[in-house]
């Protein structure tokens, strides 16, 4: 089947997609290497992408379902990600990095939905994003530092 969709702001048309192709496989084939697979069973969050700006698990969704929609991967969100990933790096919480794209995607979704979350809200929102390396605490510290620095900039506009 042919699939047409908008990928990272660009119109994409792919003929001859097998109907059972997952969105994950489709996106990797389109060169979106940031999209990772950790489990194939909707349990790890590594394959998170946005479908019409809503996070979805691309391993468990058919590419056909994305036809006609807007799909965004980390490749398309570099600037928004750059705003805060340095704070994660400062904690050393990037570690092996394999979970990072899914984690960064979902953090972007969280901050769009709730620009000033509490620690509990952060943990709850990101609970579907597994990380085997970091123990999560460093990721949380990184997000917290980012929010603190952003909030303090807001409070002192002339600083």
């Amino acid at each position: 089947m042919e699939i047409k969709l908008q990928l990272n702001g660009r119109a994409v048309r792919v003929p001859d997609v097998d109907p059972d192709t997952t969105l994950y496989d489709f996106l990797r084939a389109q060169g979106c290497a940031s999209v990772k697979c950790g489990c194939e069973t909707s349990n790890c969050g590594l394959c998170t992408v946005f479908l019409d700006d809503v996070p979805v698990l691309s391993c468990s969704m058919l590419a056909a379902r994305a036809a006609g929609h807007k799909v965004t991967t980390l490749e398309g969100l570099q600037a928004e990600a750059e705003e805060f990933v340095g704070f994660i790096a400062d904690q050393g919480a990037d570690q092996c990095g394999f979970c990072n794209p899914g984690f960064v995607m979902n953090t972007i979704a969280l901050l769009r939905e709730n620009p000033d979350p509490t620690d509990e809200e952060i943990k709850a929102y990101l609970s579907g994003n597994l990380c085997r390396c970091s123990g999560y605490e460093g990721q949380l510290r990184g997000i917290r530092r980012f929010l603190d620095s952003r909030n303090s900039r807001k409070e002192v506009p002339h600083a």
Partner: protein
Amino acid sequence: MPEKTTKYVGKAVRKKDSLQLLLGKPVYTSDVAPKGALVVQLLRSPHANAIVKTIDTTIARKVPGVVDIYTWQDVPNQRYTNAGQTYPEPSPYDRLILDRHLRFVGDPVAIIAAENEKAAHKAKKLIKVEYEVLDAVLDFRTAKDNPTLVHPEEDWLPLCDVGGDNHRNLVASGEEKDGDVEDVLAGCDIVLDHTYHTRAVNQAMMETFRTYTDLDRYGRLHVLSSTQIVFHCRRILSRALGIPKSRIRVEKPRIGGGFGAKQTSVSEVYPAFVTMKTGRPAMIVYTREESQIAGSPRHEMEVRVRLGADKDGRIRALDLYTLSNSGAYGEHGPTTVGLSGHKSIPLYTGSLEAFRFRYDVVYTNLQAAGAYRGYGATQGIFAVESIVNELAEKLHIDPTELRDRNMVRQGMTMPAYYNEPANACALDRCMARCREIFDWEHRYPVRDMGNGKVRAAGVAMAMQGSGISGVDVGSATIKLSEDGTYNLVIGAADMGTGCDTILAQMAADCLDCPVEDVAVFSADTDVSPYDSGSYASSTTYVTGKAVEKACTELIDHICTIGAELLGCDAAGVTFEGDCVRAADGRTASLTDIAYKAQVSNNCAAEVTATHSSPISPPPFMVGMAEIELDKLTGEVRVLEYDAVVDCGTPVNPALARVQTEGGIAQGIGMTLTENVTYNAAGKPIESSFMQYKVPTRLDVGHLHVEFESSYEPTGPFGAKSIGEIVINTPAPAIAHAIMRATGVWHRELPITPEVIAMGEPDQA
């Protein structure tokens, strides 16, 4: 103390690959492997013990897109081991690429090479196999001398004498002791005797096993793999495939987690075999299920401990017997078991009068085990730290005080640790500090919250090693570039741990240059100097020292070239980071020296240095857990986990902290949720992340980590290691807290809500 002043060592420098990783750049095996490779898949055995009677691939081969299918008849018949260890490997040579005899559910029966995944899948279903199903050894307690042999073959080949015997299902066995343990036990006021059981938990690194292979421009086998051990991998492939090492190149890109799993060449041989057969690029990517059922998990162990003590809490004797389950193949079997004693008993060097440590490692018809962070120490420490907590309860002594009375201290010699010295040991300070930050006094007493929930706390200590003493070799090449910057080339493998960065920090301090000026490359057997690889907590301590040596030697070379430029004697110049200065004050800049090195020069502006250590200085650690337990449902929530670690000098405190937090989280998973069970036929149940529950961020509570530094005189900048020790304290500390909350000692992991809710107090 010979502590140097440092600009980068001891600082939280960002990892060199941070932004690449965080922004999702293509840096892993699957991202950088060229497209168009043959898809390699494996048909796996449905039986725990069976012989392939007949195998027919005719119909499967007809599937459009299938290129070839290989069976046991097609592979070399030279046995080898997948274990990434220094030659001669203690692990027996007991594998073939494909064997007619299948030894666990998941053992490969056939290799399928196809143009695409669908064709490979389809072909897999169409291969006709007739199995002769044999009785299987599924309980490791009955394996030794069982009439059913896992490896009856005559060409089973042990390279080292580790007490193995394939006709007894024994991978290894042994005994060590100091003093007369029975004698001391007989004179003790109290003797405890308990057995502790840990399962074959999975590393569950987020990137499953995967390898890409092709023939390079010289027609050599080129292997791009997610591995911790490029050099061992080359040797393993050379033997398995029967081709010379000079015809193989192994490199690793970034690794999506390893934790020891990738210290075994789990996936490399299959695409390599396909490439050698077809001449075409080939790639295998393990599914999560394959990683769970045919990877290289922790050795299941049962550790029986007899502990003898005086009424006043002096621990006088420890007697350990470890039974380790190596599964169907012997990878890392003979060595992991050693750590169950070597890294647990010495914690009590302070008071021990005698110890004995005996062990058997057995074959069973279950998934072969391998190396997982902690490498046997985790299992042994769960047992020993648990029984010490049991002693504290029996004697009504505070368990932290009990440890104060018995623990190893700086300056002691550790008889149970090859008589190595505790040159640097801050375990006592770790305990004192952890008590303080955790607020042990107030949290240790059990608190009923009045809503059916109870809060309680537990404690444990741990140690590990820093490399394998007298074995591990680390090397570093450091080169000066024309603009005065450096390239550091190593064979160690950064798997997210940050070793590329910490080694650059060391180099920058040695060479007195900005850390940004040290570019790091690893690891490629064609390019990197020899390194055993990243395992056994060796990289900081062993390879770090090699970096230090290489830098010192390079400075000599720079001085020689600089002196020539300045027209003076090399002995008269000093290295000042960005220049070399003559006695009369004249200087030659590093840039000029680097250019001089390229013109009419006989002194290399690069150096390779190698290091090995006769000792393996242990890092030490104390962990304390606070839990809340629901008495009705048995649910346990970890509220707080505090840990204080002595890793010598923390080279990069941010990375050391995250290593610790990550290890604690894995330890929490192993203790509470990560289960490994089999059905009656030996088929693993927890084969996906739906059933195998690694902790989420809601499951680990608040983690708080601090460091109590010591200075290890034999380590680079006083460093020891951090990578493995951090997984060792959660199991005993949490089991302790659960006992405090329920009155029941759980001596088997994981301690699930069901187990807690059904738990009966001990009669003893």
